[in-house]
């Protein structure tokens, strides 16, 4: 951006050069594991055992990816992570949508239809953001058992929704606090009710915070491992759990290239989401604070 006035001396230029060098080194340092992973996933196994970790693939191949997707052994079965990849989607999509919808309604009710104790309710909900996952494992397992949802996808969806509501409510509550109450008053006088006001007045201006909520929830749930391990069955495992099994399956030599390809597959959706929607995420997080 050219909206900064800066000095233009030799000294200033050298300083700037050093600054850039430091920044680029730091960036490389952080990107290195990813780069190594990517390179390794395209190398045949022979090249990995022989060559250096940092060398470019001499003979790039997609075979490790194909194997990771369709043939690699995850525990007992050897079907790759592909099926689990879709499993993850089947869990993540409903969980994200439901928790976002509930968070939006909660935020709306807590800000625009205040009731006695609504602040307390909100404060209690905030607790949910700070509870460590491990604490709820046992009670949650018990509850899922009672509900007959053990080891099912719906069970996992439920767990993620329950855990996500704290965050989504926080997002939407903070966003709706910034929307003038008079809008809701005006709509009430116009004759609209609770849901109509939400649907016609609040929701159309909520796009920024919906994006934030979806991205946040998507990455959280997609990357979840603990709940996946604890509450899923063989056929309902999310991809993160499958990846772990794949890497830990010890038959013969470790196929690093396949492991890396599987890891890339597991990480790709969240990476993509950040690349495609990251700027909306930042924009949405600051949306409440700027008028316009």
């Amino acid at each position, binding site marked *: 951006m050219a909206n900064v006035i800066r000095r233009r001396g030799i000294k200033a230029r050298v300083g700037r050069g050093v600054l850039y060098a430091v920044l680029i080194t730091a960036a490389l340092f952080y990107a290195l594991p990813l780069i190594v992973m990517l390179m390794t996933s395209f190398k045949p196994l022979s090249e990995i055992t022989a060559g250096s970790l940092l060398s470019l693939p001499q003979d790039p191949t997609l075979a490790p990816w194909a194997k990771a997707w369709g043939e690699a052994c995850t525990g007992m079965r050897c079907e790759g992570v592909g099926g689990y990849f879709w499993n993850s989607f089947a869990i993540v999509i409903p969980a994200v949508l439901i928790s976002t919808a509930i968070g939006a309604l909660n935020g709306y009710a807590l800000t625009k239809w205040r009731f006695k104790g609504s602040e307390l309710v909100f404060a209690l909900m905030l607790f949910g953001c700070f509870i460590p996952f491990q604490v709820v494992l046992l009670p949650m397992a018990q509850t899922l058992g009672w509900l007959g949802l053990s080891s099912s996808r719906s069970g996992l969806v439920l767990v993620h929704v329950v855990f996500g509501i704290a965050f989504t409510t926080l997002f939407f509550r903070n966003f709706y606090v910034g929307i*003038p109450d*008079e809008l809701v*008053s005006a709509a*009430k*006088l116009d004759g609209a009710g609770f849901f109509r006001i939400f649907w016609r007045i609040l929701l*159309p201006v909520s796009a920024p915070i919906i994006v934030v909520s979806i991205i946040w929830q998507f990455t959280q749930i997609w990357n979840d491992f603990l709940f996946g391990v604890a509450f899923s069955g063989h056929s309902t495992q999310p991809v993160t759990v499958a990846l772990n099994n794949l890497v830990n399956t010890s038959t013969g030599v470790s196929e690093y290239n396949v492991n890396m390809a599987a890891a890339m597959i597991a990480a790709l959706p969240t990476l993509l989401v950040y690349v495609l929607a990251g700027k909306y995420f930042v924009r949405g997080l600051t949306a409440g604070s700027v008028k*316009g």
Partner: protein
Amino acid sequence: MAALDIEQVRKEFGRERVLKDVSLSIESGQFLILVGPSGCGKSTLMNAIAGLEPVTSGRILIDGEDVTHRTPAERDIAMVFQSYALYPSMTVRQNISFGLEMRKVPKAEREQAVERVADLLQISHLLKRKPAQLSGGQRQRVAMGRALAREPKVYLFDEPLSNLDAKLRVDMRTEIKKLHQRLGTTIVYVTHDQVEAMTLADKIAVMRDGHILQLGSPDEVYNNPVDMFVAGFMGSPSMNFIKATLEGGKGACQLRIATPEEADLVLPWPSARGADELAERAGQTVILGLRPEHFSEEDERLTSQAEGTLLTACVSVVEPTGADILLRLPLGQGEVTARVGPKCAITAGERLALRVDMDRAVLFDADSEHRIA
């Protein structure tokens, strides 16, 4: 029949008592203006009328029907908010027709209503825009249009013009007055603007600390204030208050104003104005209230017919406003403001002879601040 009746309404937020026993009543088609210092409960009263906040006790009647426990939608009220509160995601057209849509008015009728108010407010060319694409004055008109599209029993306006610049404000004020004359609707209107209050109102209610101090026509409130607060609140520049001692007996009272370093100023009280009752208070300290326009420049040519009492004082500040000149001059213990014609050629430091119109002066009890004459 009264279009709106408010009976002993109280409103508490937790322990804070915001409305303390407010009662008022306005006839159908009347224009009521609520004025009062910031935080006195005007918006709270409006919200109570609209049904946006439940009242702690008391009753609210619209057209004789008790609506105290009805929802805003059931009360048939339209409100224009200070912030306009236009729905940001909707076009002007949708904003105006939303209320009708919610009330299940058929589409054709809605279209007609939109056309009608758009013509009335001259916003036809803006119907396709979103609120963010409008100027302040245009938004204000759309907000008004949204209220006018429906034909509710009562309109509520909470400082609708306060965000506009001075010129636009005067224009909109005139338009609102015309609208009211044309449509004959019942309106409750909150404002901080003295001129708005005086020009628009059929009735003015002056509020303070959750009470209504005085409810009356603009003329009554301005010329016959019930106490020092109302007298000081209405009018700009505000009324001058001068400490004086009441003297004399039946039929002939006078006010003695102690002046430092000079002889006391003595102003005779017009005998027609309740001098008998005042006689009982002889010797007491009272507060004399004089509006700036109760002073006038002494004109030699008119001396023979001029009314009022003559006094001279040394002018300390001269403030021309264009239409007239405001003078600050010492009187009694403090300074007063006098309004004289724009032709008055006086500079600060000079002595000026002024007449005081005691027929329009008012007197207050020094302790209770209530009006005594």
